[in-house]
């Protein structure tokens, strides 16, 4: 579908980029006004991987001069364990508990007039612990006799928890269709594989910082967070007040959080409670780097796969069993595996997913959620299967990938309209051509080039991922200012993806304004904007984009109706081009919006709320990744020589932002595959590398020098956000499996445990 677009699809500069690049941008974590009465919060942490607090005495700490408040589990609102939650079930515990679930779990918090005094006060808190057995492995946590970590359920399985009284409606998954057992029995080839993915600190760089204060019965909290409105709701419930007594402010710019603040957590509860106890004085809670790493992780995962195919290349059955490591307080009961099989036609399927709790650091939302883990195992299984029946990996994928005309009435995926027939063909062809697949794929486990210990191979994988969640409350406002410019008010956090610039472009396109005539209120203040869902689930561009567009069209219609009266023509005969109202059939008859609104002494407000937003079916973002690697079989080093990520996110909104998102996802997937891992001491259960030297995030100098993105934007058959699908999370999903498949083709052995470090490569090669 072609359409004429004036603003959308261009690469426009990000409003805040200038200040960021020059180092002038103030972040909340940088700011501290010493002249104010701001108190500093510090937390006491559990030295044990698993313990109960038998006794806690905070009196000496409270008596220390300069200490304004001390809180422990005794101060937690009673409602919290069962009611304190985000709109999306991202529950992470009551803030402070008498049950310590990992080394570094929070025991108590202090607010004092200085950091020094706060730290001194922590030393004065007396705690008597009862040490308990601990478990780190997600599979062991489900076995009989494993320590019980989730106190509100019988075992560490969400499955049992669901049946427990007063339970959350966290979904547990056992699902399937067809006749898997029969299909496996009758298939030509059946393969099994166990894959693991390590837990990872996701690399949110700006220290999490919250400043909370009370004025009478009103709580204000300013913080770097992805869900201002959801935490407004959860804080209101937790503090026992109404939602209009909570004001949440998100600064105009925050550091990327990649999903980690996608939930209610102790992060905002602790300063809110401390401030209330301290008589309302502002309390600043800023995490250190180690505290950031102890706050939340991407989950570890163990997967058992069984897949069957026939010699003609037909995928006939899949069985998957997942164990998701939620750490101490995490909540995921599902690896989002259905997104995985949504990109293959699987006639017979059985899947079971165990969301377990362990004594590792809590896990939570993160870019791509469980799809990264599922893709790492699943896309290697696909290669193993195709290799066993002797079919090229691209051909096997093309033969079995989802095609819309074949999906009708079938159970695959979230939505039968989600993937178009040619999506994967186009991406596989484009990526194969760019990487030189025809010359470089010379068979499974066979290098295309060898030089002494150095061997090279190529590999590929595909992915599909959601574009937003189906149903969310959402709203936006577009106000035409008295000078004819437009102001967009929408309540989503801009967490570094430049969504505010994108929303301005969408509004400008819909209004018919010049891009420079539209601005979005950059800071989010829940007292000054209407409800919006969190910035997450890849829904900002698509869902808020659609909402802003509708609000802008509402404002445009009002403007045209006013202009129709002034210009004495019907509103239907008018349009707005470059901020000027023009009569379509008489281009000489014009009036600039500025003049129109200024003369008429009017206000014009366009709105859109949930009832106005006819969300179309979810169209999945799709992708394919190709990697070309060199492995040194003497040292186990893996070098990515070239990597190509093809991504279809529909119509690009701001092209520069799209490129940034896709490249950022590639960077993240690369790091997960080759470098990053959170490691735990088996004896004490303590994390060993809670710092940025030992937890190895790749820097710009580490990522492959040759890396390309190919953007495909076909099938723009919905117009709700000018045909945009999503791009936030999908690009992180497929690089890891592609690199792993390429490594296998280079050296003939497969690595089943993500984090393809030299020790694993050398071990797989039999050199240890």
């Amino acid at each position: 579908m072609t359409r004429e677009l004036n603003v959308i699809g261009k690469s426009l500069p990000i409003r805040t980029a200038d200040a960021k690049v020059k180092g002038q941008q103030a972040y909340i974590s940088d700011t501290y006004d010493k002249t104010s009465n701001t108190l500093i919060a510090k937390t006491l942490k559990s030295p044990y991987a698993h313990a109960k607090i038998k006794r806690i005495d905070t009196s000496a700490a409270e008596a220390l001069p300069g200490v304004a408040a001390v809180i422990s589990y005794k101060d937690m609102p009673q409602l919290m364990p069962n009611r304190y939650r985000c709109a999306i079930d991202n529950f992470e515990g009551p803030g402070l508990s008498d049950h310590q679930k990992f080394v570094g779990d929070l025991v108590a918090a202090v607010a004092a007039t200085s950091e020094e005094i706060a730290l001194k006060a922590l030393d004065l808190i007396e705690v008597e612990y009862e040490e308990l057995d601990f478990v780190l492995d997600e599979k062991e946590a489900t076995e009989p006799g494993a320590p019980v970590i989730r106190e509100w359920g019988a075992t560490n399985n969400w499955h049992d928890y669901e049946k427990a009284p007063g339970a959350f409606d966290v979904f547990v998954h056992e699902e399937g269709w067809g006749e898997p057992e029969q299909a496996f029995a009758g298939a030509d080839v059946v393969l099994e594989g166990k894959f693991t993915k390590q837990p990872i600190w996701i690399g949110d760089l700006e220290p999490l910082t919250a400043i909370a204060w009370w004025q009478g019965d009103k709580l204000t909290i300013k913080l770097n967070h992805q869900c201002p409105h959801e935490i407004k709701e959860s804080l209101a419930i937790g503090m026992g007040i109404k939602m209009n007594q909570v004001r949440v402010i998100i600064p105009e710019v925050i550091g990327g959080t990649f999903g980690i603040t996608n939930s209610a957590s102790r992060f905002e509860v602790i300063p809110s409670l401390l401030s209330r106890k301290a008589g309302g004085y502002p309390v600043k809670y800023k995490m250190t780097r180690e505290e950031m790493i102890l706050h939340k992780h991407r989950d570890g995962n163990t997967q058992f796969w069984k897949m069957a195919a026939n010699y003609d290349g037909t995928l006939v059955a899949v069985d998957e069993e997942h164990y998701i490591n939620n750490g101490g307080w995490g909540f995921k009961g599902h690896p989002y595996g259905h997104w995985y099989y949504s990109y293959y036609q699987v006639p017979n399927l059985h899947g079971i997913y165990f969301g377990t709790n362990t004594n590792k650091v809590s896990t939570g939302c993160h870019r791509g959620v469980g799809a990264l883990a599922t893709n790492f195992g699943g896309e290697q299984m696909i290669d193993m299967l195709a290799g066993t029946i002797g079919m090229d990996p691209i051909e096997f994928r093309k033969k079995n990938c989802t095609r819309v005309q074949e999906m009708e009435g079938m159970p695959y995926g979230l939505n039968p309209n989600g993937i178009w027939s040619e999506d994967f063909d186009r991406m596989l062809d484009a990526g194969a051509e760019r990487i030189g697949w025809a010359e470089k794929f010379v068979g499974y486990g066979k290098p295309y080039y060898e030089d002494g210990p150095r061997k090279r191979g190529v590999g590929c994988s595909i992915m599909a991922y959601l574009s937003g969640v189906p149903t969310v409350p959402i709203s936006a406002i577009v106000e035409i200012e008295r000078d004819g410019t437009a102001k967009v008010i929408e309540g989503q956090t801009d967490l570094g993806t430049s969504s505010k610039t994108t929303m301005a472009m969408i509004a400008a396109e819909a209004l018919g304004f010049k891009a420079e005539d539209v601005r979005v209120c950059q800071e989010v203040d829940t007292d000054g904007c209407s409800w919006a869902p969190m910035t997450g689930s890849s829904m900002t561009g698509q869902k808020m984009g659609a909402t802003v567009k509708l609000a802008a069209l509402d404002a445009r219609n009002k403007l045209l109706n006013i202009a129709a009266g002034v210009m004495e023509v019907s509103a239907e005969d008018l349009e707005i081009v470059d901020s000027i109202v023009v009569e379509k059939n008489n281009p000489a008859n014009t009036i600039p919006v500025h003049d129109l609104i200024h003369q008429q002494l009017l206000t014009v407000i366009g709105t859109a709320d949930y009832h106005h937003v006819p969300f179309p079916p979810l169209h999945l973002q799709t992708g394919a990744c190709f990697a070309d690697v060199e492995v040194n079989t003497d040292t186990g080093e893996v070098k990515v020589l070239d990597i190509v990520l093809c991504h279809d996110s529909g119509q690009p909104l701001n092209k520069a932002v799209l490129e940034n998102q896709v490249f950022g996802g590639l960077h993240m997937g690369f790091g997960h595959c080759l470098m990053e891992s959170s490691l735990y001491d088996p004896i004490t259960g303590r994390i060993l590398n809670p710092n940025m030297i030992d937890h190895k995030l790749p820097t710009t100098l580490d990522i492959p020098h040759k890396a390309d993105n190919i953007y495909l934007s076909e099938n723009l058959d919905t117009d709700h956000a000018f045909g945009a699908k999503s791009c936030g999370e999908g690009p992180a999903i497929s690089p890891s499996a592609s690199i792993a498949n390429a490594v296998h083709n280079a050296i003939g052995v497969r690595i089943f445990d993500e984090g393809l470090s030299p020790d694993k490569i050398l071990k797989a090669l039999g050199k240890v």
Partner: protein
Amino acid sequence: MRSFKYINPSSIQELETALGNGKSQVIAGGTDLLGLVKDNVLPSDLQFDTIVSLKNIPDLSYIKEEDGALKVGAATKLSEIANHDLVKEKYTALAEAAGKVASPHLRNMGTIGGNICQVNRCWYFRGIDNYFDCIRKGGNICYAMTGDNRFHSIYGATSGCLAVNPSDTAPALVALSASIVTNKRTIPADDFFAYNGVKSTILDDNEVVTEIQIPSPAIGEKSSFVKLAIRKSIDFPIVNCASCVTIADGIITAARICLNAVFNNPYRATSAEDAIIGNTLDDSIAATAGEAAVENTVPLPNGKNGYKKAIASALVKQSLLACK
């Protein structure tokens, strides 16, 4: 961060006075020291209360050739050494090693003196707030013995400790037959690194490195440095290796090979040196040297550090071939 006393002497004499009590510590670039202080790594009885800066002491930063030797001031920044044409040409292993330390920012701050005096590396030892009271800090056990020892020593443990010397420049200095000059004496690099269960070097409490000296290369002498780390941009080595080889008429007449991050001290692979002298430097003899170098390794039987043996062997080979 804990508060401490900061002294800024302007001469070596003043420095010696300032270092008079045993609770003081020298700071140059501070890239290693400040991490230890901020993370509150040491127990209170081992904590220093005074930091003595080298910043105002004149003439500690220079690179010159004099009296048949390269002389490098102890406070010379690593980036200056890495980018110095003379060092790159004649003392190649040192330039390459200095250029691979940490990141560009840290090389701009860190000094050669500090790099060879840095505290041994172990994530148990460095656990924040002295979480692990390990043997190195006066405790009873080395947690790495039974814990996660993937980056630990493969040549055994001095005083029961498996922490490794992580310096990149140290093996280069050993291979290049360097001497370490202090305010008191001149020490061969071979003897300078002498981990005793607490300290990484032989330095006395009031002793400070002032200069590095390397004899000018003999005719036919070449050196090289190779490093393997997970991250290229900023990382400590899993293993590194420096070699210095003299070849006359196609035959190896002298060789010094030094591995690091494999033991408490830089590990001079003398059996590898012996294996190649008198031979032609080629793939085969380099591989033989690699095998000889790891003959004496003792990876932990049920540990995770066994793979370092294969890497050490491969790096000896790589660094020798780079001297061709």
